[in-house]
């Protein structure tokens, strides 16, 4: 399950930020490493919500800074 989530997150990041797959490392920061701006991250979080059918409240979204943050948050939500 977790791997499935990780793959899907990476795919969404590649699509939305226009980056190469190998750049999307677990500890890559959306803003510092992957060239996103604040609006990109809003859109990214929306894409995660849509793809995984989860709600990511704003305060949680603010803490999702890296690829791993996203995978962990979504994994936790899906397990709950």
């Amino acid at each position, binding site marked *: 399950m977790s791997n499935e989530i990780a793959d899907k997150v990476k795919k969404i990041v590649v699509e939305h*930020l*226009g980056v190469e797959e190998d750049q999307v490392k677990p500890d890559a920061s959306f803003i510092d490493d992957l060239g996103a701006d604040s609006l990109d991250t809003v*859109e990214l979080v929306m894409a995660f*919500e*849509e793809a995984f059918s989860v709600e990511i409240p704003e305060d949680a979204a603010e803490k999702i800074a890296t690829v791993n943050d996203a995978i962990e948050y979504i994994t936790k939500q899906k397990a709950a």
Partner: protein
Amino acid sequence: MSGSGTNRKRVVVTGIGVVSPLAVGAELTWKRLIESRSGIGPITHFDASGLPAQIAGEVPEGPTAEGGLTLSDWVPVKEQKKMDRFIHLGLAAGIQAVEDSGWKPETEEDRCATGVLMGSGIGGLKTIYDNSVAVSTGKARRLSPFFIPSSLINLTAGHLSIRYGFKGPNHAVVTACASGTHAIGDASRLIQHGDAKVMIAGGAEAAICELGIAGFCSARALSTGFNDNPTAASRPWDKERDGFVMGEGAGVLVLEEYEHAKRRGAKIYGEIGGYGLSGDAYHITAPAENHEGAYRAMQAALKDARVTPDAIGYVNAHGTSTMADDLELGAVERLFGEAVAKTSMSSTKSAIGHLLGAAGAVEAIFCLQAMRDGILPPTLNLDNPASESVIDRIPHKAKEKQVDVALSNSFGFGGTNASLILKKFKD
């Protein structure tokens, strides 16, 4: 201005860029225009079969080298979704113009002396439509964070400034179908007033979407009788004309204070000689009686340029292929008096349709190219003029004529009128 006897700064054009239904590229558009080619065809952007108007002038897709639009050559894929199509087209024309001018400000002072002023009549209509549909289907919390910046009219100017680091005046004009002409005129004034040395100015429009076509259909503004013969639909002054044909595209000029252009050895296409504006105070969509507002705009432009009508060798008419064509013709005849026999006038909307807020910018560029090459673009489909006139309206085929001064008209809903005088450059 000729420069003598005045302290007013001269404004010259040092770069041009065009995206039109004939081609992506100023020179290829021009070449096809004077070959009497038409950019009008069936609407492909959406299924228009349920609407009275089913034709338009869409920008052709295809390789950049062949004059087609390959968007990724102008806007990185990742950025494309952050902008409506009108911004895409405005950027493609803007990039052409800036690169053509060779102007690359390298100091902070130069960056701050370079501004952008881009008009649009409508802005991101399709984006607004798509997001409205999303809201009405319960997705209000799922709208893209780029919806608003994608739709705003001034974002073409914003994106161009960000791309090149132009930190001077950043502005936008919204005067319906006069936007492109107002943008050039206003930007020239900013240079004359000393607010900037260089201004990137023009217009961009992309309103060929279901909402745009349906809206103009309801206003009874579009041609509906030529769906089976699209290239014959835009026929300014002709008896059979029955409305305008919507086009999309963008035109951008690099305007530059003359001494600045001269110092850097820039190529000069021509000069912005004069600019005139007026309002009709009459009706939201119909022009004032006898197009007297247009008359005053042209008169003001001539006065600003300190030229008399007998100097005007070419008029690029607003000429939308509607009933208003003859009113504009009448206004030109009254203003020019006897000089009317010496001038030529055409409507290039016959070939590319009506680019709304981009029209005036593209048409100003045509005036410059016409003076440069000594060739005047034709009015296609002018088989039987509804009104007789001694003015040569250049039916069907381009004609050779040396012209030193040209006049370009644009009029918009709301009763807004703008005229530009463009001059061949003389030192």
